[in-house]
């Protein structure tokens, strides 16, 4: 009976239907175990640590709150972080399905946030005009950058990983220069704050006596997730993108214009990254620190890989990873562990997610072996019934 139990686990990992859920779940469990071991080595209780991550994100109430704050405050802050995280990971998924790696999300976010703040953030337009314009500018800036990367890949055969990383640094320095030269706040040395009418979050809203900042981006992000899902599942265009991702040479033979698909997929990816940028820099924050790229641009890759590079998976994965990222400050203050441990957990999660294919391969091999053994047993049984009696007992 015992080997059957083991095989049930293996068949869960290998089944067509469930492996998209079980493999990421296994990665999450393994990385939580690793994180717990690290916390134990540091002499901290892992259970309190994970609880404080949840408390910091407003899922569980804290023992005490400052003036005007509450659990909802934390939860809405969490949603404020979740929105750009989800959008950024959708951006990665969009390109990844077509076999492209958009590592430039951080740069595209920064460019979009900078342009939106500089063009709309100081214009003094009314909220009804400014907010859609911010979204529009963000999407346009990100989309143009993405299309440029796609163009370089299509026309000059430059690997998108190298070109996006170069662009990340170029954007970082370029915006840094303009912020320092034109838009710097004389006190904080970061960009002058984006006006509230253009900001994609309603700040200081009172809900049940608690001050909350309500993100508009979260609705945008969830809608985007379903749009991306629709594109890939239900449209010819999405199918062609997936075909290019699976095998570009085969796709070319079937008459798909591979080069154009590459450009368009990177453009859409950049647009989503641009949306992430405006919800991050003109929503969650309202300013930009010069010459610093958001770590979120890289965390988004972890989210996308953990979510099996599917848009719906990305929703769940971003919920999980944002808990770690957003709760890290509170965790650090209660336990005294450096808050960098949050990114470390993300990194380990990423490591195990990258091994996902191998886990599945192991499970598959185990099942095949079990089938072989059974076949051998059956063969032995039909040849010599006496031996099989002994075999059953043993």
């Amino acid at each position, binding site marked *: 009976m015992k080997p059957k139990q083991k095989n049930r686990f293996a068949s869960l990992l290998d089944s067509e239907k469930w492996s998209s859920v079980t493999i990421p779940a296994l990665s999450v469990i393994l990385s939580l175990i690793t994180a717990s071991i690290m916390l134990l080595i540091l002499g901290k209780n892992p259970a309190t640590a994970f609880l404080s991550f949840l408390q910091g994100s407003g899922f569980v109430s804290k023992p005490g709150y400052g003036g005007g704050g509450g659990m909802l405050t934390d939860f809405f802050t969490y949603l404020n972080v979740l929105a750009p995280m989800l959008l950024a990971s959708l951006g990665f998924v969009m390109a990844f399905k077509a076999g492209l790696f958009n590592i430039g999300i951080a740069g595209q976010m920064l460019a979009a946030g900078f342009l939106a703040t500089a063009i709309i953030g100081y214009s003094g337009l009314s909220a009804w005009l400014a907010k859609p314009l911010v979204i529009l500018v963000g999407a346009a800036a990100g989309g143009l950058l993405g299309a440029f990367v796609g163009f370089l890949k299509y026309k000059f055969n430059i690997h998108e990983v190298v070109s996006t990383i*170069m662009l990340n640094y170029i954007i970082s320095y370029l915006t840094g220069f303009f912020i320092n030269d034109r838009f710097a706040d004389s006190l904080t040395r970061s960009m002058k704050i984006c006006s509230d009418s253009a900001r994609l979050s309603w700040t200081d809203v009172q809900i049940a006596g608690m001050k909350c900042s309500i993100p508009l981006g979260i609705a945008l992000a969830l809608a985007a997730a379903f749009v991306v899902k629709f594109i890939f599942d239900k449209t010819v265009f999405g199918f062609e993108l997936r075909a290019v991702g699976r095998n570009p040479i085969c796709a070319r033979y079937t008459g798909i214009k591979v080069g154009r698909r590459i450009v368009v997929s990177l453009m859409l990816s950049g647009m989503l990254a641009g949306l992430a940028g405006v919800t991050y820099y003109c929503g969650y924050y309202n300013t930009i620190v010069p010459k610093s790229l958001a770590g979120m641009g890289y965390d988004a890759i972890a989210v996308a890989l953990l979510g099996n590079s599917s848009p719906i998976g990305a929703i769940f994965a971003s919920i999980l990873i944002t808990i770690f990222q957003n709760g890290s400050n509170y965790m650090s203050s209660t336990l005294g562990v450096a808050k960098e441990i949050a*990114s470390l957990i993300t990194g380990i999660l990423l490591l195990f997610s*990258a091994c996902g294919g191998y886990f599945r*391969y192991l499970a598959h091999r185990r099942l095949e072996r079990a089938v072989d053994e059974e076949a051998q047993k059956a063969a032995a049984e039909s040849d010599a019934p006496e031996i099989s009696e002994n075999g059953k007992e043993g």
Partner: protein
Amino acid sequence: MEKVFIDGLSFAAPLFVMAMGGIYSEKSGVTNLAVEGFQGFGAFVGALVAVMLMPILGDGSQTVIYIAMAAAFVGGGIYACIHGLLCVKFRADQVISGVVVNILAVSLTTFLTSAVNKALTGGQSSNKFILGVSDRFTIPGISNIPVIGALFKNMYPYEIVIVVIAVAAWYLMYRTRFGMHLRACGENPQSVDAAGGNVTRTRFIAVMISGALSGVGGICYAYSISANFSPNIYMGYGYLAIAAMIFGNWNILPTAAVCLFFGLAKSGGYQLCLGMGLSSNYSDLFMMLPYILTLLLLTFFSKKNHPPKAVGEAYDAGKR
């Protein structure tokens, strides 16, 4: 003008050793975007050893840097095992693995740096290891040659070490049986298998060498140029090294020339900025120069290049 050469060379040498790391891995058929992570982790290990040793050997001691370089060599090599395991053993996607290794390196070193600092100083958690700056020296004689002579003035000791490593690495790759196998693994791994070589082992060792060389590059930046180890080590020089490798067509000597060109472009841009008397704000614009040059040059060279044929594929013994 002299300053351009001096700074250019001191920037180019570590870049070159990192690019060489990239070459080793890619020539064996493993795509290596992890150079950035390798150099950071190598630098971390080197810096950690240096910080531990400094109180023992005294602050001014110059032997620390050599020990730190050795530690970075070993540390980078060990860290590269992750990439090797993922790509060679676990057959994960090599580009994903590279990105994962980079992200993990950033978070791991940042976390460990603050944890170690906390343990060493008690309470104070800064994310920096303060390191020294190595002495410089001038080679008498050659340094008096006009223009080119400046390359031999005010040299860091690591520049000599890197030249020695480069010669050794070149010899290993082009003049030994192992190097032959390594290059064949990148072109036609099945033939290595047929000839009695071990593709898995060769590739794994190649990735480890790659990590070790990158680690040396990292500690050079940390120890001498920025004089500390902090998350700022992840400036994207690893990616710059990859770009240099691509122009260099995966060959060691042309790559060295490209690295030197990058170094001179960077220091030249900076001196130009100073020379024109612009405010420090403008230095940001000149800092973009190496990255823009990379993109520009890539547009010209990417199509003509011949990367190793089997790069990026997990080895499949049954494939024809």
